């Protein structure tokens, strides 16, 4: 099965550390790589680095770029690579999104995968105190 490739693109070292955390949990992921954009990096250099990363992880099923923040430089540079069925971006990367992209067990189109990763990222945010409240009440009762 051809996997959809993934490139995490962020400010500073966040990308590499997110990937390292995901790999600690679920094992090494050959189809995902990380690009950290330094605060003072040249845009052309950053662009080249992202292009190299896309080529590295591409298996022919498309590549999903996971960036840290909409409107930020990593997203803006990544946006230059958007191409139908080849390269797509989802912003606001978090650990569950990386894990979702890592665990591909059936063939999806790049578009479908992008949607699932977006949904997963949103669903995985909890205000934990609210989630645990019923239990606290139960204990008191």
């Amino acid at each position: 099965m051809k996997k959809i490739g993934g490139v995490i693109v962020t400010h500073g070292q966040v990308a590499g550390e997110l990937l390292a955390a995901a790999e600690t949990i679920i094992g090494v992921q050959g189809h995902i790589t990380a690009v950290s954009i330094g605060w003072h990096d040249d845009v052309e250099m950053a662009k080249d680095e992202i292009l190299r990363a896309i080529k590295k992880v591409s298996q022919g099923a498309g590549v999903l770029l996971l960036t840290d923040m909409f409107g930020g430089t990593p997203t803006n540079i990544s946006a230059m690579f958007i191409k139908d069925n080849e390269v797509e971006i989802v912003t606001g990367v978090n650990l569950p999104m990386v894990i979702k992209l890592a665990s591909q067990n059936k063939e999806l189109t790049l578009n479908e995968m992008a949607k699932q990763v977006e949904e997963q990222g949103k669903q995985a945010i909890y205000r934990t105190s609210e989630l645990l409240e019923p239990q606290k009440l139960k204990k008191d009762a």
Partner: protein
Amino acid sequence: MLEGKVKIINPLGLHARAAAQLVRLAGSFQSKIKLVRSDNFVMADAKSILSVLTLAAAKGIELALSVEGADEKQAFQSIQEIFADGFGEL
């Protein structure tokens, strides 16, 4: 279908790496494997780590395990063992 209870006995609960172990084990079987928290009925597919993590199951939590499929007997036993073993963290 086989049904039973499993209890989380390792101090850290069903955290990310423990959940990953469980998911890897569950994924090695063909059977459908489901876990439901006995206290709030949150349900998870044991083959999806992100689903298992939503159980937010700490030490002491009891889960209802149900396994259905061709290899349910082996799967049921293996899953019970990994819980009883505290994910190797005891």
